[in-house]
């Protein structure tokens, strides 16, 4: 589904990302872990064509993302708050995204209705603009909006951060379902090794922009990751 070739990104001479090749098959739940500055967000931004690759390219379902815009209809993402429109209410925001993805109001209502317990009664019907919601609630809105329109690829940057424990558990369920039942390719990044091993079939560890580990999740994975990060020296 997603093929990365010779990808690198340099900022004024400093290499922040360099991935020779990385293949993510359709329907995989893919986890990206790494310390701060490892290049996780950079990789996601390149996937969404928000920054320009220095070399190489990413091919998303046979479309080279920095050449054509045709990957947009089947790809969705929530990276940070800049994916929210502060002066809309949650419902209006969902409808807006829905319209961009050719979904009518009924479709949206149906989809959003499934997430009522995820929202915990704090999002819908609140008569509040998104900018007035708490960080955690904003995140919930962003994540659910990324599910609108049955995308084949969903990219979530740090989805567990800022969420309360109950919501984290519910979110894990949602992500698992997406990959297992709907064959959606889900890419997430996280600092929380436990969550990531719970949710992802495959985990890639980035370090200073390079892939240092590529693991198929098993019983031993969490242990292995913990050992790896405990030993990684921080400069």
């Amino acid at each position: 589904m997603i093929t990365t070739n010779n990808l690198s990104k340099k900022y004024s001479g400093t290499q922040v990302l360099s991935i020779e090749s990385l293949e993510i098959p359709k329907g995989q739940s893919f986890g990206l872990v790494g310390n701060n500055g490892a290049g996780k967000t950079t990789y996601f931004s390149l996937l969404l064509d928000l920054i320009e690759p220095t070399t190489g390219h990413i091919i998303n379902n046979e479309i080279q993302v920095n050449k054509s815009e045709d990957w947009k209809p089947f790809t969705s993402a929530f990276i940070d708050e800049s994916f929210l429109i502060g002066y809309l209410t949650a419902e209006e925001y969902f409808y807006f995204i829905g319209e961009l993805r050719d979904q009518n109001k009924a479709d949206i209502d149906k989809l959003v209705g499934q997430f009522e317990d995820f929202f915990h009664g704090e999002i819908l019907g609140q008569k509040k603009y998104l900018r007035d919601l708490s960080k955690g609630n904003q995140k919930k809105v962003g994540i659910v909006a990324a599910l609108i329109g049955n995308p084949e690829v969903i990219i979530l940057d740090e989805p567990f951060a800022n969420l309360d424990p109950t919501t984290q558990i519910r979110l894990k369920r949602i992500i698992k379902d997406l990959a297992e039942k709907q064959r959606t390719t889900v890419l997430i990044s996280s600092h929380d090794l436990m969550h990531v091993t719970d949710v992802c079939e495959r985990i890639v560890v980035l370090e200073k922009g390079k892939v240092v580990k590529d693991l198929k999740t098993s019983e031993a994975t969490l242990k292995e990751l913990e050992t790896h990060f405990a030993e990684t020296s921080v400069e």
Partner: protein
Amino acid sequence: MMVKHFINLEWKSAFRAPNLGKSIGVKIFMGFLGLWLLLTFLGAGMILYPGLKKIFPDKDPLLLVNSFLFYWVLGDLIFRFFFQKLPVMSVKPLLVLPIKRSKVVNYVLRKSSLSFFNFLPLFLIIPFGVTLITKDYPVNSVLVWMLALAIITQINNFLNYIIESFSSKADLSFLPLVALSGILFGLNHFNIISFGEIISDGVNAIYKSPIFIIAPILILIIIYLVNFKILRKKLFLDGTLKNKAEAVNTSDLEWTKNFGEVGPFMRLDIKLIWRNKRTKSTVWIMVLGLLYGLFIYTNPGMSGKTPFYIFVGVFSTGIFLMNFGQFVPAWDSSYYKLLMSQNIKYEKYLKSKFTLMTFSVIILFVLGIPYVYFGWKVLFAHFAAAIYNIGVNTHVILWGGSYNRKKINLDQKAAFNYQGTGAVQWLIGIPLLLLPMGIFTGFYFLTGFEASCLIIMVMGVLGVVFHQKIMLFITGKYLDSKYKMIDAFDQDN
């Protein structure tokens, strides 16, 4: 000691800003402007005495100047309100550090008293005072007089911040000030309460017996303390953290459904305009622009000067276009990444902005039809200008937007908040207004009124005819600078 740290912090924030290059450009420009103002004031200060002596030979220039002080105070206040902003410091990180709040407040206030706006009047006052001394006025008295005026400048400085802190919450932030100064001016003008005399008598008294200098000093201290209190209160975090969740007014805006694919963006834009302070002020400015013609056409000197008809026409039908259009796509800067990764074609996004601006021109033209009172020529010229706006100016301003690199923080209040304004944006205002006026004037002398109006119209129609082609070109421009825009809109400064 602390002050040294504060200055150090500000220095770093200024020179480590992401858009340093551009802001230096603007600063140099402002520097020249300031220099020019200083020189003007200096010149005025030097010729003030001989000038007044010449016009009013039998009056004492000093008394004359004193009698005008009221207007100066009033004008100075209005001028400051629009152009002087309280020095800002990001205080949040400082609050948890062991620094006394009063130190921060005092620093900010004292820094403001060193503002350019406080030095400017001195360039008038000092040369005038020196002239007085050379004309054998008592040296001591003149010195005290100069001091009194310097203190009044400082009073104005701090008074301005009080006014600003009260009006900053309002949508129409400049209304209270305009109302207040209007009332003061009115009371004075109709001799109900003659503030002019009060101030002039006061300053005269200080001139005669310097001991009265105590009065303005006391006022200054009181105003400083009031400011101190207001600012100190703001320094508590809950002031900024407080959730002022406004009442939400949802509406479906069903009628925009008629615009098909462009509809969702139109709805978004209308909500954008109506729900954010910054954008809402463009609506109010629109009203001012619409009425602008009244200032021109009621002026007898203007009647028959047809090039101004075109100018007013372009301005009053295009005021929204210029105000809104010049910040495309920066209005959407805070969620630009979303738009860029969503299932959106750039072309439709721009088309929606174009449609919105076109509608504003049509509506403003219709609302301006009563200008026919000043003659059919006025209406005809406005009509030509409206077509020109739709065909030419909308495209030009969208094209200019592709050079936009400055984020706009929608929550900030602001008529006259120039955040998000780059040098390019001001440059674009010139061709929008002056070009059609120039073309018109050129042809006016060759062919006459009707023909030159027609030429303006034809230019507009050509723009409409080639709309698709032009939009394709503009879309290309936006695509070219996509990464640069995303990066720039990501920066907070």
